[in-house]
Structures are given as C-alpha cells and as structure tokens.
C-alpha cells in the first residue's frame, strides 16, 4: 500500500438537467479511498450516494471537480477511455445480479474476458478459478434460472473478480437476499478484500452489512456527512455504532 490514495474525489459536483429544472445531486464531494480499503457508502435516497458510485464506477463524469483514479484524471476521459478503464481495473456487482439469462454461469463469468480478447483456454481457466473462489465450481454449467439468489450473486461476484480488478463496486449486493445469504456474500467480499487485495466499495442500506466494512461513508444532501472507521469489521453492530468505531466529523 502506498500513501497516495487509489481514488481521490475532490470538489465533485454533479448537476442533472438544465436551467430552472436543474438538480444538483452532488454539491462538492471530497473523498480519498486507499488501496485495499473496504468502504461502505450509506445514506438515504437522494443523498447522492448512487451518483457518487456512478462516478466512481467511471459510468458517469462529474459536472465539476476532479476524480483521480490510479493517477488518471477520469473526469477528462471520453466514453471509450472510461470503458477501457472499467474493463481493466473495475468490477461491478449489482443488486439485481444482472446475469445474462439462458447463459451458463461459466459463460457469464467469461464475459469480461471476451472483451479483453483473451483466448478461449485462458478464459475458461480464469472463469473456472473465479467460480471456484466463490464456491460455485460445480455449478459452472448451470444457467441463472437454475441457481438460487445467493448463488446468482456469487456468479456475479465471480464475473466481477475474474479480471483481477483493483476495485469492486457493489451496489446493494445483498438487497435481494435473506440475512443468511447476505452474511455469506459479505463474508465472501471480506475474504476477497483481505486475501486478494481488492478494494471494495459497497453501497448498502443495512447497517449490519456496512459493519463488514473498514470505513463507512455517510452521505446526506449531496455531501459527505461523516466517515466512520470500523476497527473490528465483520461484527454486526445492531444499528448502533460499537465502542470501537471512531467517528470523524465531516461537514
């Protein structure tokens, strides 16, 4: 780990619409994310957390401010350049799993490698390794319809990590799962963060899930409200910050 943050957001604003209909979703967000961090992003609807995640995921660009990722000024990249950045360094996990229907787990996991132009043998090997990592190697030939919700999300995680990304962006990955499956998914993410060194950015509504993170960022009204450091990640907090969670005030 180096001292320079992997990701630096400074003075990020995002305005949707124009003129009187304009709506400012982000009003100047500053945020540093270190390599190897496991950060949970929380906040009510409309607080700007989704917009921030879209910018962090290089899917959207800020109206103003700078977003530096791996020393690259992402805000000035064009659409295709951002695609290449995603392809190379980012993995996505969504609430709705977003697997391709009628396509086997293996083919789903292979998908990002297809766009990287890797050979069939290399694709197969990497995809099987990723499925193995999420504990679904025996289910490789099954289609999403034949898998449970928890299993589908594991396939989605395998797809996100098959390229060995720097950052995994998980947008409410447990939103469609029961508590037991949710905890399994969080444990899997914790394991990937700890043992594969993947930086994880997690959006969640549930404090139990946020408790798995090292850092919890709270958004409100388009600004970062506060950042918590969790020194005992992985322990559910029952909605109350445990004694060893340090709260850094942030306006």
């Amino acid at each position: 780990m180096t001292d320079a943050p992997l990701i630096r957001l400074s003075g990020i604003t995002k305005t949707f619409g124009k003129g009187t209909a304009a709506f400012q979703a982000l009003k100047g967000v500053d945020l540093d994310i270190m390599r190897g961090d496991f950060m949970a992003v929380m906040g009510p609807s409309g607080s700007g957390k989704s917009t921030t995640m879209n910018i962090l995921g290089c899917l959207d660009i800020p109206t103003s401010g700078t977003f530096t990722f791996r020393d690259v000024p992402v805000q000035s990249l064009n659409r295709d350049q951002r695609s290449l950045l995603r392809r190379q360094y980012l993995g996505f996990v969504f609430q709705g799993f977003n697997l391709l229907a009628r396509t086997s787990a293996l083919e789903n996991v292979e998908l990002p490698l297809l766009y990287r132009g890797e050979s069939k043998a290399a694709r197969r090997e990497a995809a099987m390794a990723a499925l193995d990592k999420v504990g679904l190697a025996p289910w490789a030939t099954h289609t999403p319809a034949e898998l449970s919700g928890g299993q589908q999300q594991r396939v989605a995680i395998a797809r996100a990590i098959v390229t060995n990304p720097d950052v995994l962006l998980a947008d409410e990955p447990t939103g469609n799962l029961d508590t037991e499956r949710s905890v399994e998914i969080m444990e899997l993410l914790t394991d990937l963060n700890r043992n594969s060194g993947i930086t994880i950015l997690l959006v969640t509504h549930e404090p139990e899930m946020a408790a798995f993170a090292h850092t919890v960022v709270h958004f409100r009204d388009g600004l970062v409200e506060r950042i918590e450091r969790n020194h005992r990640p992985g322990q559910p907090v029952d909605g109350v910050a445990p004694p060893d969670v340090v709260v850094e005030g942030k306006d």
Partner: protein
Amino acid sequence: MFGTTLLLAFREIRRHLLRSFLTTLGIIIGVAAVITMVTLGNGVSKSVEDQISSLGTNVLMVFPTRGDRSGTPRQFKSSDIEAIRTQIAGVKTVAGQVSQSVTAIHNGQNWATTVNGANDTFLVARNMELSSGRIFSDTEQEAGKSVCIIGSKVQSNIFQADTSPLGQRMRLDTVSCTVIGVLKERGQGGGGQDQDNMVVMPLKTVQRRFTGSPDIQTIVVAYDGQYDSTSIQNQLVKLLRDRRHLSDAAENDFNIIDTAQITAAVTGSLSVITAFLAAVAAISLIVGGVGIMNIMLVSVTERTREIGIRLAIGALAREVRMQFLTEAVVLCCLGGMVGMVLALGLSLAITSAAKVPFAFDPMINIVAFGFSALIGVVFGYFPAQRAAALDPIEALRHE
C-alpha cells in the same frame, strides 16, 4: 475480437432459436424466390435455345408468303434451289422441302404424322441424324422411290418395340413405302413442330404421290458460319425477287427466317422476363430486411439491461454496435444459406416437373447470398447504433 463477436452472435441466435428462425423467414423466402426464379428462367431459356438450335445453326428457312397478292402463296420452283446453290457465296447446302399431313398405317396401327419430302441435303442442313438404317441413295432420290425414314415417335407408335422397322413396309394414307432409316430422337422443335413425329421421303416421291405438283414449299439454306447472315439474306432476297419477277415497288412474297435471330430474340425476351421476376422476388428480400430491423429493434429494447451490463464491464460502444450488427448479418447469412438450399430443392422439383433443364447458376447464388448479407448490414445498422448509444447507467436501471 471478430471471432468473439461472431461467437456472441451465434450464442444469441441459439438462445432465441425460434425467434431467429421466424425473423429470417423473410430472407429465406426472398433468397429462395430470387434464385429459383433465375434458375427456372435460365432453364427455360436453355430449353428454348436447344429447341431452336436443333433446327440447325447457320440455317435460313425461306417460306412463300402472299406478298401484295391475294390468294394462296406462290411456291418455289426446283430451279430456285439450283440458283441459290450456284449464285450465292457461302451457301453450303440448299434443300427444298414439301410437307403434308398424313396418317401412317402399319399392322392395323394408325398414327397421325407429317410427311416431309426432302433430299438428303435437308437432313444435313437441319442436323438430323439417323439412329439406325441409312439415308436415301441417289437413285432413290432421282427416281422418286417409295422409301422412307421415320421419326422415333412414328416408330414407337406403329411398330412393335422388339422388332426393327427397317425393311418393313408401311402405308402413308394410300401410298405404301419401305422403311430404310430411323431418325434420332431430338425432342420438341421450334414453332410447335414435333421433330420426332415425321416421316421423310425423297422430295420427288412426295411431289409426285402426295402434293401432285413440282413446287417447293420451303427452302432450307445452310450457310458457312464464316459468312455474315445478313449479307446472305440480302443476296437471297435480291435473287428470289428477281426470279419471282417482283417489281421494285412490290413487297416480298416470301419470308426468310434465321434460326440464330429467333434464338437471340426469344432468349432476349426470356431474360427480360427472368430479370423482372427476380426483381419482384428481390422485393421480398427487402421486406425480409425490414423484418430483421424490426426484430433487432425489439431485441435491443428487450436486452437493454444486458447492453448495460456489457457496457459496465467495459465493452466499447463500437463493440456493442459490432455485436448487434454481426447478429443481424449472421441472421441474414444463415437465412441466405437456408434460402439457397431451399431454392436448390425447389428448382430441382419444378424443373423436373416441368421437364425444363436444370440450369444451376452459381453467380445468382453468390449474388443473392451477398445481397442478403448486405441487407443484414443495412437494416442491422440502425438497431446496432441505437444499442451502442445507450447510456450504461440508464440501461442498467431499465426494467
């Protein structure tokens, strides 16, 4: 990357097999229709060409017509034949011919046919060959003997299959004759005359025993291919007008038909008809293209989320565009291939049912297939462009 795109396209088509088939139905029918039309057109042209060339190539046929006069056309004289042979350069053989409808009778079997009075030069001029027996001897021709050469239909209809007709006697109306030869089968001739249903006898015999006059109904002129048909025709006209004492103002009272000209005219109009039918069939190809575009647009909308996923995991806009374009082109090409196979089956079935030669034309197959691929590109571009322009955030949110 192209192999990958192709793989994705095939996967997608496999995922929606029935829909893919229905989508390409328009292309299948279009390609099949175009190829079948052209193949059948070629077959018909070829059959007509064969029939006309069976009359003999480089052959002019001269018929008497009324000209300015009323009444029956004035026929030719034997001396006209001699004049043509000796006075026009490039003429190989000249044969006079008379014909009359008769009933051939043998062993109680009756058969309606035509007796042609002609000399052996007639057989040469019209490319007629014998399958057995011999042609007339000079003496038989000079003396007007009662010998005949029969067509294969005459043979099969009044002679028994297991015995040779050679040397046997048959009757034509009241005239009896000895069979000395059988003509090779050659199929339907031009102008509705069945070339297998005829009996050939020496000209003199027919003039004497059937028509009862020394006149000649048709003159067949075979000329050397190195000479120009038009110049020979002009010389013929001049010579015959002279011999028939026509004034300068009078119309020709004879007509010259060049088999090569008939061939050119008939095949020319047939190819126009074929092209027209193929163009009509090509419209169904375009309609098929619209069908492809329709389904591809539906597909893009239906797969908006999938496109969002692909964009999110790093697909470039052009890769998404390429994927949908490839899908459309692959669909069209598959349709084109199925259409080609279908056309082959249809053409074989129809040509064998209609007794037309099957003239496989690789060019039209290539053109129709290429056209179907082109339709894939043209009609697949718009939906593909729409897919590529999607915003990944919006696409992922799409329900």
